[in-house]
């Protein structure tokens, strides 16, 4: 066990709220964990030695910040700084069928969702289980068709360690959009986990933006428990930061669920990004489509591990997983691994992973039309990511993201 983890366990005993009973189970599991090394499968390509020795401060209570303006988004904004709430929930006007409570508000009945979608094997998920006192519980009533997106923004700041938790319950036949937006920089470490329980025939449009700066350490996950015939459309956008690790789980806990997940990562030079995704097809007739695409700058490192687990009962499952990477220089590194475990015989499962370097033929074509090589490089390489940005159902978000990512990319190119 690391020095840091020992302190986490110490601090956990001081956390007392309505979730305490469920936190106890997590604490017991966490106490049995050994600190990951390079020989630990889930951390093979990501070293935690920096985390092991972290000594950061707890967040201070009176922070202030505003959510980034996104033209045309018109969202309900819930802002946090180092997981501390800035927005007064009581003052929000919420759409019909939506209720939002602070995680530590006993009325929120957070335990209904807590650890319902997130498996217990994520080390930092367990840390979040025992330490996260701040966050939200969002309830969308059965049948509610919520058009206004709910946006949860969490800024990190220099010198601070923080833990944030979001729990969302989407009622039967309900429809909602939730955006988890992490931003900020400074030598910081935060964990941010979100769980979603999707009711029968519900629809969730989900976004996770992990846009932390080059000094931040970010550990988090988004986890989904799919109800019968529910639909998930999720987009995850990650910067590398000093170290970003994101775990996602989609659990097909009932039949006929459909999950689409697009992941985009753009790593500036020297950044580190690790994405582990798992799709659990536990029931028949489920569909999952996952596309992860990333661009890796000089001396940056990307890790992608895409696991699909089709249980013996999960006949007629359709699962697709694809990972495409572009290395901008030989100095960058990509470790990509699909992990398929298929125990049912009547399924269709396709997967693929590619690592490309600059495509000379396409570059040439653009150049024959007068476009300078440097510009053509940006057009080509961004296009491959843009495809996924364009697939985002929310146009205000894709229009906001497009230039942001393009700018980030051109900065990587002309370093």
């Amino acid at each position: 066990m690391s020095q840091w983890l020992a302190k986490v366990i110490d601090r956990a005993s001081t956390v007392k709220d309505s979730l305490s009973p469920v936190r106890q189970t997590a604490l017991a599991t966490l106490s049995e964990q050994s600190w990951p090394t390079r020989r630990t499968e889930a951390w093979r390509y990501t070293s935690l030695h920096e985390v092991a020795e972290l000594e950061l401060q707890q967040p201070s209570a009176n922070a202030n910040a505003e959510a980034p303006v996104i033209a045309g988004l018109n969202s309900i904004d819930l802002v946090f700084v180092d997981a501390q709430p800035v927005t007064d929930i009581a003052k929000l006007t919420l759409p019909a069928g939506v209720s939002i409570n602070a995680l530590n508000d006993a009325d929120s009945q957070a335990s209904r969702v807590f650890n319902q979608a997130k498996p217990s094997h994520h080390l930092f998920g367990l840390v979040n289980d025992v330490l996260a006192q701040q966050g939200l519980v969002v309830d969308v009533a059965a049948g509610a068709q919520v058009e206004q997106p709910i946006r949860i923004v969490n800024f990190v700041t220099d010198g601070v360690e923080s833990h944030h938790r979001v729990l969302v319950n989407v009622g039967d036949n309900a429809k909602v959009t939730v955006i988890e937006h992490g931003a900020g920089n400074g030598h910081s470490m935060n964990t941010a986990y979100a769980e979603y329980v999707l009711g029968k025939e519900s629809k969730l449009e989900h976004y996770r933006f992990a846009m932390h700066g080059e000094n931040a350490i970010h550990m988090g996950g988004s986890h989904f428990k799919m109800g019968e015939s529910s639909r998930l459309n999720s987009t995850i956008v990650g910067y590398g930061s000093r170290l970003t690790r994101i775990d996602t789980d989609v659990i097909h806990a009932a039949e006929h669920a459909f999950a689409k997940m697009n992941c985009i990562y753009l790593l500036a030079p020297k950044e580190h990004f690790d994405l582990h995704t798992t799709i659990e097809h536990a029931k028949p007739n489920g569909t999952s489509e996952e596309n992860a695409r990333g661009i890796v700058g000089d001396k940056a490192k990307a890790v992608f591990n895409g696991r699909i687990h089709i249980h013996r009962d999960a006949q007629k499952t359709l699962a697709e997983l694809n990972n495409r990477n572009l290395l901008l220089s030989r100095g960058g590194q990509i470790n990509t691994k699909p992990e398929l475990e298929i125990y049912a015989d009547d399924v269709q499962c396709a997967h693929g992973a590619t690592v490309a370097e600059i495509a000379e033929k396409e570059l040439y074509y653009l150049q024959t039309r007068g476009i300078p090589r440097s510009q053509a490089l940006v057009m080509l390489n961004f296009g491959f990511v843009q495809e996924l940005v364009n697939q985002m159902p929310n146009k205000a978000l894709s229009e906001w993201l497009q230039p942001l990512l393009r700018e980030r990319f051109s900065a990587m190119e002309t370093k």
Partner: protein
Amino acid sequence: MMLTIKDLQASVEEKTIIKGLNLTINPGEVHAIMGPNGAGKSTLGYVLSGREGYEVESGSIQFENQDLLEMEVDERARAGIFLAFQYPVEIPGVSNMEFMKESVNAARKERGEEPLSAAEFLKTAKAACKQVNLPLDFLKRGVNEGFSGGEKKRNEIMQMILLQPKLCILDESDSGLDIDALKVVADGVNSQRDGERSFLVVTHYQRLLDYIQPDYVHILADGKIVKSGGPELAKEVEVSGYAWLEGHEEASA
């Protein structure tokens, strides 16, 4: 002079493909190049465009008053050379619209003109789209992404119309086209003939040349121009093919 190629010898992968080629094109002229498969017609286009991997071993290429061989691919394009590809490449993810806007604006920048706004460009692009008979939604699709063979060819002609080059090299822009599309492509080309703009039209079929009347027809075989003449030469080829080449090469050897 628009283009002067002298004693050009060029190779791909260390294999010599163009073996001493001479060609002069004046402003406003239309030259057709015919010749058997593998003769080096596409290679000539690539060499003119400046494609990487196509080594010029000897000879010279003068474009207007510039030494073409000293220029990068994109510089040549901005100087006014346009190559319509035999097999245009698909680029999913870059929209046709964005692609063409950037290329038109690169040409404008070269001429010292202001870039076109999205709205201005859209107007021009719509007109060009109509001219080659492609539905407007082709502007939104990825460059050539999922286009049929004929649609790709029309997309190339649309780019030519938008870019207003000085020398247009059309590499089999007629192959794989149905009769109507062939007419569309030919009309597109003819609309650009203004007495100044020159064309180098690579084709296997006399049919295209019925629509686009060439000033000269050249037969390219084994990396050289082995025969040149007027439009009647294309008709000869249509009737008797290239069997006579064997004898010709022996005779010239």
